């Protein structure tokens, strides 16, 4: 008998199931390429277990997206207002949209460059991102016939996979906005849910775990929380929120994110490996840069980059030799300065000022700066109370009110100059912190 449902074992979700049509997407070249893209770039040099790939993460995102869709579109969980604004969820189109959401979730990462995020900004043409590559692939000759067989418009896949943030020229319907939020939403996007759980498992950092079963079961489409004061009126926009019984699991998700940011994603040595990798790729791919077209992209994975890096490390004249050596021989730059409240009270961009001073005093190429204030926050989401009222999560949760945000400003020095530069920096830091140049309007 021919099988119509196919199962894959997964360490997070136990089983991921696909239909035969969906498996054809899984078997396509753009998706299979993800078997060779590390989820966390070179993090395995710091956390040895972090060798997992975008392939299994994408399967997990698809699985979770389907579960979330089933919960939020269940007839018993839809209010009259939601039925009015998104009638498609209570019609015979529900099955169609479920498949679009799952396929968009499956394909959301196919545009990733080798080693994921590490060098995207430097390698792609100005203004382009890996999301643009994802859209290109979804619409390409590799995938378009598969969508046609499934009666799905590729544009819908791209819109839901990337959301309005990345598809700026597209107008999203209310339904498309909500469905894309399932995948890429700041608070409850399943992309984030899966990577926190999966990265936590593979790095061995237990802080990334949270009760995603409970969280998913309590997700609802709600109106956004109201504003207050004299401006006390019902909000008319829809957003993903939780029933009040799921608030603690939502807190746990956001705490997990904070801990994973501070322990793993912003680990100082992990970050300097990203910088060395970026330097290597920029030199190795110069002058043409990254191939922003289907076949070129499909032909480049971590495998090709690692092979080139090993070659470059052995040959002093090869492009990217120094960076390859820093990565493969543990010659990475060492941190000599971290952001701290005393310095930022004087100058919020203290690291920039100190880097300029160091580069004026020593060989400029011996230093790197890593500056990154956390972007996604979103602790303010709607919560459905027992009395049917919708409240802001921040009005209800002391945990969310006090959730820290991570801001990184680190300076690294080459190992051979580390001691002397750190000593010099400590001696002169107080004098160097004040902004040296007038940033005000000319």
């Amino acid at each position: 008998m021919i099988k119509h449902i196919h199962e894959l074992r997964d360490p997070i979700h136990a089983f991921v199931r696909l239909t035969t049509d969906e498996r054809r997407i899984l078997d396509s070249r753009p998706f299979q390429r993800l078997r060779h893209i590390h989820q966390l770039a070179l993090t395995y040099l710091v956390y040895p277990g972090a060798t997992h790939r975008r392939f299994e993460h994408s399967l997990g995102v698809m699985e979770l997206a389907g579960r979330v869709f089933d919960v939020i579109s269940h007839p018993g969980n839809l209010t009259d207002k939601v039925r009015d604004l998104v009638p498609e969820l209570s019609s015979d189109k529900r099955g169609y949209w479920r498949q679009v959401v799952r396929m968009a979730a499956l394909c959301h990462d196919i545009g990733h460059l080798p080693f994921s995020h590490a060098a995207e900004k430097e390698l792609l043409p100005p203004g382009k991102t890996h999301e643009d590559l994802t859209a290109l692939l979804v619409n390409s000759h590799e995938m378009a016939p598969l969508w046609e067989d499934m009666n799905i418009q590729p544009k819908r896949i791209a819109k839901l996979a990337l959301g309005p943030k990345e598809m700026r020229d597209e107008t999203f319907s209310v339904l498309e906005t909500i469905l894309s939020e399932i995948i890429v939403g700041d608070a409850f996007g399943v992309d984030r849910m899966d990577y926190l759980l999966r990265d936590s498992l593979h790095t061995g950092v237990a802080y990334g775990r949270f009760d995603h079963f409970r969280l998913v079961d309590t997700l609802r489409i709600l109106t956004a929380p109201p504003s207050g004061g004299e401006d006390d009126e019902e909000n008319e926009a829809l957003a993903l929120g939780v029933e009040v019984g799921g608030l603690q699991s939502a807190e746990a998700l956001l705490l997990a994110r904070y801990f994973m940011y501070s322990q793993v994603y912003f680990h100082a040595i992990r970050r300097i490996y990203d910088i060395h990798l970026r330097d290597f790729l920029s030199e190795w791919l110069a002058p043409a840069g990254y191939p922003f077209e289907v076949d070129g992209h499909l032909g480049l994975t971590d495998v090709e980059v690692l092979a080139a890096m090993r070659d470059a490390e052995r040959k002093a004249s090869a492009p990217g030799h120094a960076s390859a050596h820093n990565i493969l021989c543990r010659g990475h730059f060492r941190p000599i300065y971290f952001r701290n409240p005393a310095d930022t009270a004087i100058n919020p961009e203290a690291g920039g000022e100190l880097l300029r001073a160091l580069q004026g005093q020593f060989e400029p190429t011996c230093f790197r700066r890593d500056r990154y204030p956390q972007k996604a926050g979103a602790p303010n989401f709607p919560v459905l109370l027992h009395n049917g009222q919708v409240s802001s999560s921040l009005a209800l949760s002391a945990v969310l009110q006090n959730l820290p945000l991570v801001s990184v400003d680190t300076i690294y020095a080459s190992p051979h100059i580390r001691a002397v530069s750190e000593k010099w920096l400590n001696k002169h830091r107080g004098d160097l912190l004040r902004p040296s140049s007038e940033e005000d309007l000319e």
Partner: protein
Amino acid sequence: MNRMAKAALLTRLLIALRNHGSWCGETHVQKSIYLLQELCSVPLNFRFVLYKHGPFSFDLRDELTSLQADDLLTLQPQAIPYGPRLAPTVGAQALANRFPKTLASYGAAVDFIAERLGSCGVNALERLATAVYVRRQHPEASSTECAKILAGLKPHILLENALTAVDEADQLFLETRLQPMLS
């Protein structure tokens, strides 16, 4: 305009909005920045798309979070069920003092926007900002045509409210064109 100069201008805007009675939640700030940028041509360079409440910038949302991470902005939780208010920190006000020329250049525009929007609720702001968005896309369309487009984009907005919003938007365009300090 660099990041710190933008933070200084944002600080000035938040203070002005509050002085004019605004709740100063994220939606209020998003719409005020949109109109500041698009009506008064203040070069903030945030990219806006049409989103749940009308024009919305994901870049601006990220920047508002980043400013919180850098201790320049704070979220003030409110009583149940209300959403939080945004407020500049003491550090942000100190930072703003480093940008007197920026604030002098764009202060009139900031005050104009704060005065006009300070008393608006989120739904009124959504209607007005979306009307400005539609008008920019369809400069030659009649008010009625614009209102129909607006109501099509935002099905929960009644046509008569859309028409009022388009008239208000046209009035704002006219005022900003007539006052050189504002554009």
